[in-house]
């Protein structure tokens, strides 16, 4: 059986919490040690699904853009079509984050346009965007 990164980091956090922190005198270093323990726990809990979370977000945004192309005009419509047709350049977190950042920039431009559009289709799309943003926040919530 392989030792996963998640298990390894949980082990590091436990060592910091149970064996190192008790040896550190109260004060600035002790507080740093406490926070370091929490941060390692957050990293441990995020490492397994880090790629899956980003792949899912990117797919959801592309689908939104595909559905929104006909609702807007001009340059934004072209940007949406291009973003909807884009693909993730790879499965490294840095590659997925790069794509995620580009897609989010388009999403911001789209929402700025349709949130002042009173047509029902635009308002429905805006509601979908808010729903997506809420879900993204839930899925990315730091777990300690």
């Amino acid at each position: 059986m392989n030792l996963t990164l998640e298990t390894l980091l949980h082990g590091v956090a436990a060592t910091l919490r149970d064996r190192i922190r008790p040896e550190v005198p109260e004060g600035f270093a002790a507080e740093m040690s406490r926070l370091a323990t929490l941060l390692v726990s957050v990293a441990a809990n995020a490492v397994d699904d880090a790629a899956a979370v980003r792949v899912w977000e990117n797919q959801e945004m592309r689908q939104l853009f595909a559905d929104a192309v006909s609702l807007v005009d001009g340059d934004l419509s072209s940007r949406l079509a291009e973003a909807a047709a884009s693909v993730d350049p790879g499965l490294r977190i840095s590659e997925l984050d790069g794509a995620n950042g580009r897609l989010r920039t388009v999403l911001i431009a789209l929402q700025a346009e349709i949130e002042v559009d009173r047509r029902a289709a635009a308002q429905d799309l805006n509601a979908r965007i808010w729903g997506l943003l809420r879900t993204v926040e839930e899925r990315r919530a730091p777990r300690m």
Partner: protein
Amino acid sequence: MSELERRLADYLAHQQPGARNLSVTNLARIQGGSSQETYRFRATWEEEGRAVERNLILRRAPPAGLVVAERDIEFTVYRALAGHGVPVPGAYHFETEPCWLDRPFFIMDLMPGKPGHFYASADPYDGQSDAVARAFWRHLGTLAALDHRVLGLAKIRNGKADDDLWSRELDWWTAILEKGEDVPEPIVHAAIRWLRRHPPPGPVKPAIVHGDYRAGNFLFTPDGRISAILDWEMCHVGDPLEDVAWAIDPFWPMTRHLALEEGLREWEASSGLVVDRLALDWWRLFSAVKACAIWTTAEASFTHGEAREMVVAMSGIRAGHFHRNLILTLMTERGIAA
């Protein structure tokens, strides 16, 4: 004597040519805000035949931190506010020459008391929560009543402005947010657009705004007094409700210790102003945006290696999520985010 103690002693001796046998001991780094390095120390010397002992604080600029603080702002404000009803430490010797301690710093008095940690589940004020909370609101009201021009603070941010204080601050924090963003947060940008389209009611009296007035940024004593209000790096002139909204942000809720309405009554009594609830609601959303800008800066500082403090990393990860969730709640209250 450590290397930093020796260099600090050299500096103090340089500043006080009349002092003999100046010594710095017990230097220890302490928690004291996340945008300045804070150390306490003891300085002793002889002067005109008598022994002098002082417990002092060194505040030194870090390589980078949560926000890009104007380096002399805290020192300037401490000097200006001394003796005007808002408790602040005495401040001495603002220095920018890197030959002394590498980065800008100043020296101030170590004040009595201790901070109450806002995340403590039990009573953080040792049975004095009510008194501390009332003092908290009263001092903020006193600050709002002061005239920054009379105190010589017209040179701080917005110090010469009389209107559009809300848009100046929104522009300021939007620029900071965008500078630090690697992956933009659509939730925060949506809130910024809403704030621009729905300005708070005006006009307002320009006031000295602490900028980070909250639990954790003051010291209290066992008798329930607030002995010092600290961490003025983000001080500027603005709408006094900016500080009120920041103080009631649920990340550091002073309303745990005194109901909001009672706290606002204390503030109104000492400021002589009336809280406009619509304006306060605007500033509550603004506060969440400002917080996100600060946490984004924290993330950027850590990402780019300019800061390695654990509190900076934790702020970026945990507090950023908290305040984006808060924006979702506040936008839902406005009927924007279903």
